[in-house]
């Protein structure tokens, strides 16, 4: 026995038995087609032990130091009927969903009160070798509330596979605004699973800015429902995949009603033997007239062995819709490289310039200046020969 079987056997309840019976998804589950599950199955996963920290953090499947900001309510109440339904929907998708449901013990519920404005900084601490933590976070943004949620991941190295799963439900009541910044530079043995299920009511707006270059394996399942008129969503994402990393984002934006807008911009940069999957689906239902969507997906391959699996899906059933989309896969432009080299830049510096430019288009969109700076700095550390650009930024930026 390996994977989660022993743990599930110990838990021994109805959900655990279901998860055990179904097992981890195989290649035959379409949405898990490319996910390398061997590492997951090979480790005998144990419950991770929460660590002490002073920050608001997720560690060992527990939230610690939950903030008590003005405007924020923390509750242990049970989920609403609709929240439970949404969570069950994630659970029932496949065997990993069932495993998440069975091994999650706490649900943290945070409510941003009516018209209040709150900033939350959530740190994800690394779990110990061969251990895993499962948690769920429910966020309710009341009418007119504003929330900035910044998630960061501890990068301290762990010598063996470690895993963290967070399923997050957010409900944005009318006129609320959530800016969600996710910066994932986790340790290179981490297996990270993130589910985001967002519901935007009338005139609510959800903006996600995500930059990911850490972990061994990361899988993000994002579903955004625009279920009230004038609701909008924007997603700006960058994944840098190197070595033998695997990054996978499955994103669906569902225009449930009309007069809604969405924007999806995602870039993958893949080097080494890395593999990245991006599935970007926009659904505009039959009666969702006067909706607008913009989708742009760009993939940059930097080595012969790098792989990328981009899949844009536009499903438009309404007729009065504005939609644009584009998906490119390519390597660095030879003409641009030649131009830079003809000015005396070495091949490696010229490549670093162009890689930086590709990534910067997304990083530049991060609305939180401190985080943007932090991400830029780390990004330059991540790029081969990024130090030249770091030095230039320091010396001549105004």
């Amino acid at each position, binding site marked *: 026995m390996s994977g989660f079987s022993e743990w599930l056997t110990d838990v021994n309840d109805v959900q655990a038995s279901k998860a055990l019976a179904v097992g981890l998804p195989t290649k035959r589950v379409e949405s898990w087609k490319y996910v390398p599950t061997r590492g997951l199955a090979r480790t005998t996963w144990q419950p991770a032990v929460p660590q002490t920290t002073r920050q608001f953090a997720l560690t060992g499947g527990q939230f610690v130091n939950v903030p008590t900001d003005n405007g924020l309510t923390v509750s242990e109440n049970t989920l609403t009927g609709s929240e439970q339904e949404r969570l069950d929907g994630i659970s029932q998708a496949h065997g990993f969903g069932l495993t998440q449901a069975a091994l999650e013990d706490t649900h943290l519920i945070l409510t941003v009160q009516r018209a209040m404005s709150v900033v939350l900084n959530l740190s994800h601490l690394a779990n110990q070798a061969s251990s895993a933590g499962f948690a769920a976070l429910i966020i309710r943004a009341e009418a007119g509330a504003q929330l900035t949620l910044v998630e960061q991941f501890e990068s301290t190295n762990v010598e063996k596979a470690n895993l963290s799963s967070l399923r997050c439900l957010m409900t944005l009541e009318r006129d609320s605004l959530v800016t969600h910044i996710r910066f994932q530079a986790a340790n290179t043995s981490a297996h990270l699973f993130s589910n985001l299920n967002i519901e935007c009511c009338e005139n609510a707006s959800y903006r996600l800015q995500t930059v990911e270059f850490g972990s061994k394996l990361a899988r993000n399942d994002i579903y955004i429902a625009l279920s009230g008129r004038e609701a909008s969503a924007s997603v700006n994402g960058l994944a840098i995949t190197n070595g033998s990393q695997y990054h996978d984002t499955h994103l669906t934006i569902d225009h449930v009603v009309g007069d809604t807008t969405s924007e999806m911009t995602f870039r993958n940069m893949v080097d080494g033997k890395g593999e990245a999957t991006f599935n970007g689906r926009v659904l505009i239902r039959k009666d969702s007239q006067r909706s607008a969507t913009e989708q742009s997906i760009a993939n940059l391959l930097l080595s012969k062995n790098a792989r990328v699996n981009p899949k844009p899906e536009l499903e438009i059933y309404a007729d009065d819709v504005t939609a644009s989309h584009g998906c490119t896969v390519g390597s660095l432009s030879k003409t641009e490289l030649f*131009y830079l080299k003809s000015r*005396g*830049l070495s091949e490696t510096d010229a490549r670093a*310039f*162009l890689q930086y*430019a590709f990534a910067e288009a997304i990083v530049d969109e991060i609305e939180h200046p401190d985080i943007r700076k932090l991400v830029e700095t780390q990004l330059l550390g991540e790029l081969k020969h990024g130090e030249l*650009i770091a030095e*230039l930024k320091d*010396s001549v930026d*105004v």
Partner: protein
Amino acid sequence: MLSIRNLHARVGDKPILKGIDLEVNAGEVHAIMGPNGSGKSTLSSVLAGREDYEVTDGEVIYMGQNLLDLEPEERAWAGVFMSFQYPVEIPGVKNIYLLKAAVNAIREHRGLTELKAAEFLKLVREKLKVMQMDEAFLHRNVNEGFSGGEKKRNEILQMQLLEPTLALLDETDSGLDVDALRVVGEGINRMRSPERSVLLVTHYQRLLDIVKPDFVHVLTQGEIKLSGDYRLAERLEREGYEGIEAA
């Protein structure tokens, strides 16, 4: 400084340069004229090291080195600079990053110390003034959204900063208004020196009125068919290439 001997080059299966011979001594300005598609840009690109072109025969000796053996960046380090007929836009890379990185890369290979930010800014402001360019161009992405004329000025700005030994200027005058033509022409003149040579590709005598060439060559169908002094350009202006070929 530069000896081109029997240079043949092709793109794919298509021969473009069919035996170019050209001697350029230090301090000389050579104008290359010729009909569209005759191979002028191909010649400059081959000299700058663009890999789309395959050299099938001949050799190029630049300051005692076999130029064709060098990578494009090595040619830049050795003092070769090409002003592109179509300057390349590089979204996401600020002009000032490229300028500073380029200046210091070339200084390093000339055994000079790296310019610190303040020294570099002083230098670049000086050159901007010469080119009558606004400082805002430094903080825009390389050539992105620049007008045709602004791109050409930016090329000459780079040349001013990099101080090449051999400048290959491919139609740097095309698309310039009268005032810009004078600025660019004078920018080139400022660079003239006994140690520096210029290969000037142009279609118009206007630029040659400002930058007086020592020699004028006519490139037709991949070969230099005619060479002469400044008066050849005047004759071309009057008679056109057809008149000259017929003669």
